[in-house]
């Protein structure tokens, strides 16, 4: 029983990362209809940026948590303005290819500069140590990951579902032309949305830096699961991606307890089952 609780809690922690990452993907897909394959690379770059800020500039973790997503958001804005924008009229395969290419370039550059063993980013002093919960030892930093992830996801959901900006966003998802006819600057919204999605990926990267080794490949091992999460949740569904992210973390935890060998494939089994029963995903609507 103790082991079960432990594995479920670990699953919830991993689920928090899935939720943060799939949220960004879902927002971008929802509005731009772009499958952002570079999401894993942007997450990796966020972690590297935090490490570089600490190593070269002496900027600590909490500042990095603010500055890195902002800086990466600007990178995202530039990518959208200079590259992605040219592909909107085309099949969304082109967007996928472009972002996949960007991923390869980014991973290659970081590999060339830093190698693949990666670098170690220390856990910030304020969040070191842990508490013994009886059934497991919970590092304080992991608890922090869960709390922050829930806060950020809830805030994003609130902005999108309950504010005027969010209303525009959702309207843009449904029918961008009509929205433009009402005088809303849709291209600007596209830019901001992509920038925000990238910033979320970078934010997750900074959160991950103290837990995982910061390496050029850290994104590629995570991104497949995150894509599956988005598909299960329903492409483009905000709430879907958050709940599915956390849920898949728990399912993985449960699998590790019951049959550990299946833990890395269980997410794809769930995906296949969901697609059979609800082709649009758990929270998705048929378009």
């Amino acid at each position, binding site marked *: 029983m103790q082991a079960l609780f432990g594995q479920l809690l*670990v699953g919830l922690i991993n689920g928090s990362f899935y939720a943060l990452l799939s949220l960004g993907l879902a927002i971008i897909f929802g509005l731009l209809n772009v499958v952002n394959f570079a999401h894993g690379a942007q997450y990796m770059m966020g972690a590297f940026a935090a490490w570089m800020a600490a190593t070269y500039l002496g900027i600590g973790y909490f500042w990095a948590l603010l500055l890195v997503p902002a800086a990466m958001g600007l990178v995202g804005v530039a990518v959208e303005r200079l590259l992605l924008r040219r592909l909107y009229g085309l099949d969304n395969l082109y967007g996928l290819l472009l972002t996949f290419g960007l991923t390869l370039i980014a991973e290659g550059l970081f*590999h060339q500069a830093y190698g*693949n*063993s990666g670098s*170690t980013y220390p856990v910030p002093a304020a969040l070191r140590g842990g508490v013994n919960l009886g059934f497991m*030892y919970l*590092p304080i930093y992991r608890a922090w990951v869960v709390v922050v992830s829930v806060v950020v996801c809830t805030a994003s959901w609130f902005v999108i579902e309950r504010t005027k900006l969010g209303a525009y966003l959702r309207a843009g998802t449904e029918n961008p032309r009509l929205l433009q006819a009402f005088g809303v600057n849709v291209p600007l919204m596209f830019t901001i949305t992509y920038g925000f999605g990238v910033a979320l990926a970078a934010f997750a990267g900074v959160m991950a830096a103290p*837990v995982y080794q910061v390496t050029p*490949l850290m994104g590629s091992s995570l991104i497949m699961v995150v894509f599956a999460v988005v598909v299960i949740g329903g492409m483009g569904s905000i709430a879907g991606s958050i709940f599915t992210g956390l849920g898949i973390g728990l399912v993985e935890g449960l699998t590790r307890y019951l049959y*550990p060998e299946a833990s890395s494939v269980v997410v794809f089994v769930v995906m296949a089952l969901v697609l059979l029963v609800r082709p649009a995903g758990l929270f998705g609507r048929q378009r």
Partner: protein
Amino acid sequence: MSRIPRVACCLAALLAAPTLAADKVSDGVVKIGVLTDMTGYYSDLAGPGSVLAARMAVEDFGGKVLGKPIQLVSADHQLKADVASNTARKWFDQEQVDVIADLVSSSTAGAVMPVAAEKKRITLLSGPGTTAFTGEKCTAYNVHWTYNNWALANGTGREVVRQGGDTWFFVTADYIFGRSLEEDTSKVVKAAGGKVLGFARHPSPGTTDFSSYLLQAQSSGAKIVGLANAGADTVNCIKQANEFGVTPKQSLAGLLVFITDVHSLGLDTAKGMYLTTAFYWDLNDDTRKWSQRFFEKHKKMPTMVQAGVYSSIMHYLKAVQAAGTDDADAVMAKMKATPVNDFFAKNARIGPDGLLRHDMYLARVKAPGASKKPWDYYEIVKTIPAAEAFPTVEQQACPLAKK
């Protein structure tokens, strides 16, 4: 499918026969292929550094053997067995490659060795660890150069048990290498009077979060958590073991740790850990001299795999020179007949099973305060003589050696 190139090869060989007889070097060139992981999880411990080491060996040899040029090619096998064996086939059938070096990751080495044996070309394993490559899977054209799992298990495992670490739990990479390392170490632990309490096997490569495996290790109550994995997996395990409070209550035994792993972990995280290695740059004047040359080009000190690639290719080229031909059977006979004496190994010999038996070193990672210069990471606890470091021919189940 493969018959057409083979027929073509035969025809070409017939046409070229008169010149061949004269100079004894097939195709007028000795071609060395370095097949390694250029971009993936093992690319720092092997990869471009292995290619550099091979290039240094060719340059140091003078770029020519028996008056014919030595060529070097390299390719990325992406840690995939099928990519590795296809590349090897292409190299052998179409590009006249005579020998393949490194082959980091046992899954790729295991795929290439039978191909090489079928085509009568030589493999020089430096990166992989699986003991069976000179045991039941041995071939007549293979040399296992740098280390094997048996040596790691005996070096690190025995010492840890001797110091009181008599209950073990393994965190194992779930493929041939990890399982072989777990199995070899379990035997050593049990033979030394210790107990194995359990294991957790993780997919590899591709796992970054080890917390659930470490939780199992923690709840097992074992004194020692043995890490039967390599590269980025080991590094993430050690880092997260610190985070989850596995250490210092339980101790970690990294069964395969490279100097690049220690470098990326930092001494503060890695300090105190025991490891077994075939090579350390700061052993003596010879190792320092070679490593310094390597460092100037690569900006990182060589791992044992990279040093082994240099040493194995050098020995191969000397054997070609001495045999007066690049014919694989003659070269293999010469390689096995000649002891290896260089900065990497002293008076080491290749057995009939293809295993190079040389001294190994039991090292301990220094604490940050004890490290006086860059890359000053290891304190050598003891030298394990070749006879103790590796299994004897009789202990190996290699059918070739039984004759």
